[in-house]
């Protein structure tokens, strides 16, 4: 009964925690899918141990993963991780819980809309999970669902993918409207725009990306749904033949149209994955270096520029489609330009460390781990953003390594930092420090062992989405043994996540009880007042002459 009460609460904290719990479950599911894939890549054609019998005869007879099932795992791993795991955790959970608190509001601007957003998200997630159990299984056309393959895919998996996506898009639309309105309208007295914590800025821009980029995929999903269900041919070119048979449709469609619509969403989506993470890391770094952020204003301006530019770089995912060198040159130029604000933010975060008396707490370790990992992810993206060097690297495991460095040891580390950092705010208890440190070190080592070899394989020309990990290809033979290394590291990563899970549940009941502001932080979410007023910038640490080394934003100025 109590659980049901939580499911219909309009309180932003409860909804934030619902989002957190649900998205962590989805992260676990997405991770479990990839563990099966990693087994198959390391030992192709050998039965999956322990769980192999659970997948059914249609997917894995005798526990051996069939190619079609492998494709389902790949498509759904990407979909679940991005749309049901990371974004809901970064925006739905952290945004819901913290944005109202950090701007000094009592709740979001539209509490009922907020609950609706969660329900749409949950419904979308359940549709995605249910699609595994229909005839033909879940969508198996990659997380990008490129047409015409996805248009013509048999079974209902792809249709359910479109339905689930539609629900998730409605959810993020409602959430984005709420976050923006809350930040614009409900800032506490005295909290001017440049007194907002960087985390709030990051959520603000992220919400605009969600608001304006997602409708493109909504439109694409409608069009593909029509193609699949009604027989239109928006994405089916004329003269298409399938299995030797000419396709009986009107034709005249464009496969490129899908790619344009998809990437118009999906490139801003990349920044939806990254910006909240940068926001969390900025908060943790300011608090643990006991210094104001270096270059706060340039960071804010940069995040604006990032948000704007992210709308005009999408076709750098499409250099190999033959869309023409002029268009390629344009998108290559914008892609190089967008790296500038990214580098400014990352440099500002690194320079913030200089001269600080750093507290090496568990959240700070994750934030420090984030910086170089994010750097590797960003720098390895440069060759992919240049049309010429993208030619040999496109669709190789190099690409997979690149974006996983950004999202796994990048964004996920930031999200872990956020969980360890704000856990006492939500529960009044600390998470265990030793378990947290083991979790950090183990994850850092394993993540690098998984993703670094992908660069090596990719440079050797091994394609992504290969069911057997490249076993049948001559050029892959020299780097084939890395598959075993990567898979072992993935299983190791799973082992180290146990430390996090145990820590999370143990600390809920038995964590060290702490006071209202255990990290001695300055921002408004730690304030215990019922109505707050801001008097100063967000990160006033180590102010010469002040009584403590931190001056909270809502502490009235002493009369001088």
């Amino acid at each position, binding site marked *: 009964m109590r659980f049901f009460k939580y499911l219909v609460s309009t309180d932003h904290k409860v909804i934030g925690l619902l989002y957190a719990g649900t998205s962590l479950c989805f992260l676990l599911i997405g991770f479990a899918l990839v563990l099966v894939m990693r087994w198959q890549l390391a030992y192709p054609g050998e039965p999956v141990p322990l769980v192999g019998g659970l997948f059914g005869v249609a997917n894995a007879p005798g526990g051996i993963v069939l190619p079609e099932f492998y494709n389902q795992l790949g498509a759904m791993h990407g979909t679940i991780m991005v749309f049901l795991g990371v974004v809901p955790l970064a925006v739905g959970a952290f945004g819901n819980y913290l944005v109202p608190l950090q701007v000094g*509001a*009592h*709740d979001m*601007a*539209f*509490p009922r*809309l907020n609950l609706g957003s969660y329900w749409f998200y949950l419904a979308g997630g359940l549709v995605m999970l249910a699609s595994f159990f229909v005839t033909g299984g879940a969508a198996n056309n990659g997380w990008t669902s490129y047409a015409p393959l996805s248009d013509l895919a048999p079974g209902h998996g792809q249709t359910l993918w479109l339905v689930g996506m539609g629900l998730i898009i409605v959810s993020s*639309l409602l959430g*984005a*409207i*709420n976050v*923006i*309105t809350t930040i*614009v*309208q*409900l800032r506490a007295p005295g909290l001017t725009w440049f007194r907002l914590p960087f985390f709030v800025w990051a959520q603000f821009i992220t919400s605009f990306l969600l*608001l*304006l*980029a*997602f*409708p*493109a995929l*909504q*439109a*694409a999903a*409608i*069009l593909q749904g*029509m193609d699949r269900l*009604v*027989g*239109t*041919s*928006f994405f089916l070119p*004329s003269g298409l033949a399938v299995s030797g048979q000419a396709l009986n*449709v*009107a034709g*005249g*469609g*464009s496969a*490129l*149209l899908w790619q*344009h*619509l998809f990437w*118009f969403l999906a490139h801003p989506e990349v920044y939806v994955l990254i910006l909240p993470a940068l926001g969390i890391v900025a908060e943790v770094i300011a608090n643990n270096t006991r210094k104001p952020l270096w270059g706060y204003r340039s960071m804010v301006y940069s995040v604006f520029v990032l948000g704007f530019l992210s709308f005009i770089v999408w076709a750098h995912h499409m250099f190999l489609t033959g869309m023409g060198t002029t268009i390629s040159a344009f998108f290559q130029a914008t892609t190089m330009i967008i790296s500038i604000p990214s580098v400014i933010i990352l440099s500002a975060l690194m320079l913030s460390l200089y001269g600080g008396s750093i507290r090496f707490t568990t959240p700070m370790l994750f934030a420090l781990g984030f910086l170089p990992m994010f750097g590797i992810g960003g720098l390895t993206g440069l060759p992919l953003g240049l049309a010429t060097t993208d030619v040999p690297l496109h669709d190789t495991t190099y690409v997979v390594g690149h974006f996983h460095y950004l999202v796994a040891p990048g964004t996920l580390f930031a999200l872990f930092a956020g969980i360890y950092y704000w856990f006492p705010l939500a529960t009044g208890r600390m998470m265990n420090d030793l378990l947290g440190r083991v979790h950090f070190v183990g994850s850092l080592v394993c993540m690098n062992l998984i993703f670094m070899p992908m660069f090596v394989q990719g440079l050797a020309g091994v394609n992504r989405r290969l069911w057997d990990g490249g076993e049948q290809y001559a050029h892959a033979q020299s780097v084939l043994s890395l598959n075993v290394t990567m898979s072992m590291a993935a299983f190791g990563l799973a082992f180290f996540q146990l430390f996090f899970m145990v820590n999370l549940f143990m600390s809920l009941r038995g964590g060290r009880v702490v006071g209202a502001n255990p990290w001695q932080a300055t921002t408004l979410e730690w304030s215990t007042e019922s*109505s707050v007023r801001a008097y100063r910038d967000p990160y006033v640490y180590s102010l010469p002459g002040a009584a403590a080394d931190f001056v909270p934003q809502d502490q009235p100025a002493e009369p001088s």
Partner: protein
Amino acid sequence: MTAIPYTTDVRPDTGVTNPKLGMWLFLASEVMLFGSLLSAYVLLRSGALTWPDQSAVLSVPLATVNTVILIASSVTMLRAWTALTAGNMRQYRVRMGVTLVLGAVFLAIKTFEYSDKFAHGLGPATDNFLGLYFVLTGVHVLHLAGGMLVNAFLLGPGARMWRSDPRRFTQRVEVAAIYWHFVDAVWLVLFVVLYLL
């Protein structure tokens, strides 16, 4: 629990209420949705070898009537709101009622257009022009129907708020009117693009 500020009061430094800002943000997202669909139209039409004579396939007279009806409904919607600002609830009910009826007439004509197409064996799968026609007008009709649901609520059970909080009710009608005008504006674009160009 404290009430959420600026639900009915304008925040001085931003100049809007929460619902109005929320509606504008929602419409920004809607612009991107229809913009994406229209860009699909542009890309498919510019890449097509042949494209039917649109005004020969579709009925321009019917669409012209529908355009006039929808513009009229925008006017009555606006006048319904001004009736409320003048404190005249009876007049509001009449004008909102007319808005609803006009919306229903639009839907009826659209239904006739659709069924006429189907009767002649023309469907979304016939060619990409008709496919886009059905998708674009279909998505628009769904928006129109959604707006009519909201308007019906504001005419029926939702109107009780007039007695308890007339200011907030007037603003609700204003925000609903913004949406209604947007649906109207989308139709104007669709009329030009699908029927006339």
